[in-house]
C-alpha cells in the first residue's frame, strides 16, 4: 500500500483532483447559462470536471498498476525555502527601502539556498548586482523603481 501512496501517479492525480475541485467550487458561484448563451461559469465548470476526471484516472492507474508508477522524487526544502523566501523579501523591501537595499537582501537570503557559500563572495556579489541592476534596469532601461529608501 505504501508504494501506491507515494507513486507520482497517485500524488499528481490527487493534486489534479484538488485543483479541479477548487475550480468547480468557485465556478458554481458564476452563472452557468445555457448551451446557446453560455454564462461565465459554463466553460470553467466543464474544464474543472475534466481535470477531476483525469485526477481520478491517474489515481485509478496508480492502484491498478502500482509497479508501473515511479516513486515521487525527493523534495528538497532548503533551496525552495531560500529562493522563494528571497523573492518575498525582495518584494516586501522594494517599496520602503528601494532597489539597492532589497537587491542586497535578496542575494544574501538566496545565497543560503546553495550548499556552499563564502562570505566575502556573497557580499561582493550582492553589492555588484545591486549596482549593476540599478545602472542597467533603472538608469538605462528606465524601469520605474525606487532606488533608495523612502525619505532619503
Amino acid at each position: 500500500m505504501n508504494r501506491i501512496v507515494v507513486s507520482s501517479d497517485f500524488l499528481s492525480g490527487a493534486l489534479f483532483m484538488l485543483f479541479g475541485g477548487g475550480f468547480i467550487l468557485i465556478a458554481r458561484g458564476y452563472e452557468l447559462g445555457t448551451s446557446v448563451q453560455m454564462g461565465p461559469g459554463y466553460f470553467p465548470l466543464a474544464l474543472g470536471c475534466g481535470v477531476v476526471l483525469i485526477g481520478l484516472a491517474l489515481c485509478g492507474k496508480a492502484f491498478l498498476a502500482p509497479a508501473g508508477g515511479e516513486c515521487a522524487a525527493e523534495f528538497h526544502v532548503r533551496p525552495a525555502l531560500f529562493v522563494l523566501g528571497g523573492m518575498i523579501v525582495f518584494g516586501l523591501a522594494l517599496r520602503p527601502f528601494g532597489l539597492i537595499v532589497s537587491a542586497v537582501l535578496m542575494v544574501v537570503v538566496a545565497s543560503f539556498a546553495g550548499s556552499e557559500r563564502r562570505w566575502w563572495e556573497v557580499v561582493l556579489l550582492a553589492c555588484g548586482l545591486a549596482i549593476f541592476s540599478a545602472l542597467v534596469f533603472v538608469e538605462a532601461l528606465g524601469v520605474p523603481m525606487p532606488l533608495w529608501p523612502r525619505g532619503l
Partner: protein
Amino acid sequence: MDFASNIALGMSVAITPWNIFYCFVGVTLGTLIGILPGIGPLATMAMLLPATYALEPTSALIMLAGIYYGAQYGGSTSAILLRLPGESSAVVATLDGYAMAQKGKAGVALAIAAIGSLIAGTLGTFVLAAFAPALAKLAITFGAAEYFALMVVGLVAAIVLSSGPILKSLGMLMLGLLFGLVGADINSGIDRFTFGIPELSGGVSFVVVALGLFGITEILSNLEAREKRILVSAKIGRLMPRWSELRQVMPAILRGSGLGSLLGILPGGGVTMAAFASYTMEKRVAADPDRFGKGAPEGLAGPESANNAAAQTSFIPLLTLGIPSNGIMAMMMSAMLIHNVQPGPQIITGAPTLFWGLVASMWIGNLILVILNLPMIGMWVRLLLVPYRLLFPAILLFCCIGLYSVQNNTTDIYLAVICAAIGYVFYKLRCDPVPFLLAFIIGPMLEENFRRATLLSRGDFGALLTRPLTASLLLLAVALLVLAILPKIRRTRKVAFQED
C-alpha cells in the same frame, strides 16, 4: 515577383541600424544563455519582455526571436566542447560533436554546426516566407468553429508529441486552460477566480506564469544537483573546415534542413524532435552507421541544421493561425499581444513590415551568429567557469526585477512565488509544464471561440460536426489522443524519447 518584393520589404525593415542592433543583442544574449546550462531561452525571454515595452513592436520581436535561435546555437557550443547540452535540442550534438572535439577537431565541429545552422536558417526562412501567406489566406476564411477545432488539434498534438506521460500532460493542459480564464470574463465582465484581488482582474500575466513555472523552477532543480566542476581544457584549433569536409556534410545539412523545416511546422513539434529525427535519419542513410557516435561529421551537421530549420518554421502556426505550437511560441505570442499585435492570419496583410521584417531579421541574425560569434566562441565558453552559486542569485534578481516591471507592482512577484511552488511540485511529480503554458495562453481564445461557435449553431453541439473542416479537425484530435494512449504507440514514443 511577389515573393521577391516581400523579402525586399523585410530587408528594408531589418537592415535599419537599430533593428540590426536589437538583433545583435538578441542573438548574443541567446548564445550566452544557450552556453550556460542553468537558464533557458523561455525564462530569458520572459525576463526581458517587460524591458521591451518601450521598443517598437518589430524591434522587440526581432530581439526576442534572436534570443531563441541564438540559444540553439549556443547550446550546441557547450555540447560540442564540454559534452554539456546547454539546451535540450543540443543533446544530440553531445554524441558526435563531442567525439569530434576529442579528436582535436573542435573548431571544425563548431564551424560545421554554424555553417549548417546558417544554411538551414536560410532554407527555413524561405519555407516560412513561401508557406505563410498561402496558409494565412486559407485561415482568414475560418469561422469560430474552425478556430476552436484548430486550437483543440494544436493542443492535443502538442501533448501527444511532447515527452511526458499522456494522462498527466492532458491534466496539465486542462489546468492551464483554467488558469488562463482567471480575470474578467469577456462577455459578462464578471471577475472569475480573482479572490477579490484587483490586480488579478486583468488575468495572471504570462510573464508571471512563464518565470514561475520555468525560470524559478529551473533554479530550484539546478540547486539540487551537486555542482559539477567544469574544466575548459579543450583546444578549439582550426576553425575553417576543409573543402572535402564541407562536401562530406553538405548532403546531411540539406537533409536536416528539409526534415527540420517540416517538423517545425507541426504543432508540438519543434527543435528537439527535429534534431533527434535527423540523427536517426543520418544514421539510416549512412553507408557505415558504425562511425556514428565516434565523431561522424554528418551526425553533427544533420541535427544541427534540423533544429535550426525547425526553429524558423515553428513560427508558421503562430504567424498564420495565431496558434503557438510550443512554449517559446507562446512566449512570442504574449510579446505580440503586449505590443498590441494580434497574432493570426491578418498579420501578413495588416502588418506586412512587422511580418517580413521579422522573417528577414532571422536570416540576418543567423549571419551575425556565424560572422561575429563564431570567432568569439572561446571567450563565451570561459563563462562556464563561473560557478552556479554566483550565477543563480543574479538570475533570481533579474527575474524579480522583470516581474516587478510587468505592472510596476510587487503583487506579480508574490504570484510568481506561488506559481514556482506549484511548478516545483509538478516538476517533482513529472508533469510536463509546457502543455500548461500553451493552454494558459490559448485558454481565453478557446473559450471565446467555443462560446461564439455554439451561439452561432444555436447551442447544438452536433452542428459543429456538420461543418466538414471542423469535424475532420476534431476527429483528428480524437484520433491522435487514442493513438497516443494505445500501448503500442506508447512504447515507440518511449523509444523515440529515450535519449531525451
